[in-house]
Structures are given as C-alpha cells and as structure tokens.
C-alpha cells in the first residue's frame, strides 16, 4: 500500500524557485515548530525514523492538506500522546494537567543545543557479516507487494524504484535500518548501497532514458539480478 508521502515520479505542478531569497523561516511559528520538534526529540523517547513515520502515518487527507511544518506539529503531537508524555486531554485543554504524575525527563538545555546539533545522530554501525553485494553488481529491488512495505510500516524504498533493476555504485557500510528502527524494533543495521537506475528502466516515458537516478537502499531491499 502506497502512502501519500511516497510521491516520487508522480506528475506535479509548477515549481516556484526562490533563488536564495526566501527567509529561513517564512513565518515566526515555522522556526518554533522546528525547534519544538528537535527539543522534544532530544528527550530520547523516539528516534528520527519514528518521527518520519509519525508524519507518514497521518491520515492521507491531513497529509495532503497540511503545510510542511503543520505535518511536523501533527506528527509531534501524535508521538507525545503515544509515548504518554502528553495526554489527549492536555492537547484539548492546551495546558498541562496539574494532577498528572511527574515525568522523569531531562529537557534539552540551551547550553547543550550547539553540541547536540553538532553531534547529530550518526547511523553507521559495525556488523559482523560481509556485504552481500559489491560495486558493479546488478540487482533488482523488491516489489512492494513482496512485503517490504506493509500498511503503516515504514520503509525507505520508494514505490517508483521498487521491482526495478539497478546497479550497485557504492557501499556505504552498515547503517541503522529505518524499517525496524521506526517501529522500535531495534537498530537492525544492514549494509547500505548506492544503487544507480537508468531513467528508462524506471519510467516508460522518461525524458532522457540514459539519465540516471541514484538511491541509497538497504541490503534487504535488494536481490541479485538473475540474468
């Protein structure tokens, strides 16, 4: 089942370049929404993959209707409630319930912001196994019907590149697998590969069939190509 966020390759409207002129935050609340999301994330109750999944799991109508930072706020609200940091009543009342039990948390302080942002969240991990593929190998990507993407399951294999043939152009070592991590099922690191596709292999009506599209795909998304 394809969710609305998985939109690569679909027809779309005009693009409105800003040529570098747009302010970083077009509205005051945009910066605030970003900061709230990062500060709440720093509580460590969920990870970036879960955050992405929360936005992707918004009802399609909301996903399509909300502006960018509205999706962030909605995803944040849902994570806060599902992790029992905030109750539905508190969201409704727009204030904290004075009788709610204390939460043992360590909020991000202003003094630590710079260091936390500088560290980020590196995803590379060491694994004991050898990579299955090497640069130059031809592979086929799983089709989404094969179960890479169950309804409401997070994956980073876009629909437009599923069930297609490509070639390995890089191995980026092993990284946290979002498909597992987003659902709190552990980091389950896997080798991550740069995979190159020909535009003509992805799209029957490609503008220029020899153009290339490169994606970073996890080992479990790939099968050796049987020629």
């Amino acid at each position, binding site marked *: 089942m394809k969710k609305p*966020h998985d939109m*690569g*390759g679909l*027809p779309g*409207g*005009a693009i*409105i*370049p*800003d040529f*570098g*002129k747009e302010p*970083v*935050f077009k*509205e005051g609340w945009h*910066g*605030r*929404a970003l*900061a*709230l999301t990062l*500060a*709440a994330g720093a*509580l460590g109750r969920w990870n970036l993959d879960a955050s*992405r999944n929360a*936005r992707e799991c*918004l009802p399609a109508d909301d*996903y399509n*209707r909300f*502006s*960018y930072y509205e999706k*962030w706020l909605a*995803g944040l*609200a*849902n994570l*806060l409630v599902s992790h029992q*940091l905030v109750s*539905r009543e508190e969201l*409704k009342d*727009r*204030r*904290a319930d004075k009788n709610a039990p204390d*939460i043992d948390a360590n909020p991000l*302080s*202003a003094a630590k912001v710079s260091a*936390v942002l*500088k*560290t*980020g969240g*590196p995803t590379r991990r060491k694994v004991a196994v050898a990579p299955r593929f090497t640069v130059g190998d031809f592979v086929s990507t799983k089709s989404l019907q094969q179960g890479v993407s169950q309804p409401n399951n997070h994956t*980073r294999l*876009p629909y*437009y590149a599923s069930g297609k043939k490509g070639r390995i152009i890089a191995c980026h070592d092993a*990284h946290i697998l979002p498909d597992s991590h987003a659902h709190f099922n552990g980091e389950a690191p896997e080798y*991550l590969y*740069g995979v190159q596709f020909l535009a003509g292999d992805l799209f029957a009506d490609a*503008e*220029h069939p020899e*153009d*290339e599209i*490169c994606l*970073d795909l996890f080992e479990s998304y790939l099968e050796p190509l049987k020629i």
Partner: protein
Amino acid sequence: MPHDHDDEHAHSLLPPDPQLQVKALETILSEKGLIDRPALDAIIDVYQNQIGPQIGADIVARAWQDPAFKERLLKDSEAVLGEMELSGRQGEHVVIVENTEDTHNLVVCTLCSCYPWPLLGIPPSWYKSDAYRRRAVHSPRSVLAEFGLELPDSKKIRVWDSTAEIRYLVLPERPVETAGLKGKALRDWVTRDSMIGTGLPKDPKMDAPKMEVPDAETSPAETSPAPETG
C-alpha cells in the same frame, strides 16, 4: 495507562491554526518540564543565523582552488568535513558529487525533505514541495528549465534521491570567468541552488532572474492541494 488505539489521530485535538498549535504544545511541554524555552531560542538562532549555504559555498570555493583538498573531499568527505567540524544533525554522512563536462547532478528527497543541514541550512519551500519531490526524478530536465537551466541532451543528468541518511552536496564546475578570483569574491559565485543542482554558479553582480514569486504556501499553481510536505 491504557494505550488508546486512536493515538495516531491525537493531532486532530489541536486547534486548527498552526500558530496556536505551536503555542499549545510549547505551553504544555514547558509546564510539564519537558522543554526548556531558551533551548528553543537557541535552536532557532543556529538555523536562522549561524548555519546556511555560505558554509557549503566555502567548501566549494576551497575545492576549486585547492586540487588536493578537492581530491580528498570527493574521496572521503566525511573525514574532511569532520576535521572541519562541519558534520552534525542531518549531515552526519555526506557525499560530495562533482559536476563535470558530461554529467550534471541534482539532489532531491522524494520521501520527505532530507537535505545537508550543516552545509546548506534549512531547505527552501520549493525543495520541500510536492511538485519538486514528485517531478525531480521523473522530469529533471523540465524541472531545471523552471530554474532557468536548459541542459543539452549530450549532458547526462544524475539525480540523487536521498532515501537514507547519506546527504548529498553538488560540487559545481568552476566558471571560467572566475579565473584569478579568491576568497569571498570567489565564494560569492557559489549559489545555494548550484549546490543542490538546480542552478549553476553565478556572477554575484547579476541579480536573480526576474520572476514573480508568489507565496509557495498559498499558491494555487499546484495540482496537488499541498504545496509543502515533509
């Protein structure tokens, strides 16, 4: 505590106006001791005033001037950027891709809005728009034309869809007109869009193409009702 199956839709309890949503969440989290308001100001300050495309432009200008630096940057950008203390959130693992006579690189994130934050800052609205996310992989040439960039058929386009935690920065070709330039004079040629691939380096004395720039958030030009997405 019971786990309400409707948790996913808790967001619908927020007020409809996003400004009020921010206010509500900030009030609740602050009263509960889950956020520290000065930290929010500090985060905004970092992205509004400290991190931005000038950082990426510095790297590009240095790569143009210093072949040894460029070679290391292309081979092991993560180590080079780490030494320069330029890694960080949304730029933990960066790959630099070089434009050449034969190949033009273009970066997108079709699934959300992944972007090399420590090098370019927060992405512009169009990068996060449905239109760009939908079309960049399928119709890169017509997308580039909308940025005023017409590429000859003889030049191959390589689109990088940032589907995992690798972030991409384009190293554009150095324009011949910049021969002899150094420092800021050279850096000023490196536009943000040239590092995403939707533009080329440009003489800073020339202004951006004259175009009407309607508000991307309310523009009716979209076929899809949501111009901005995450």
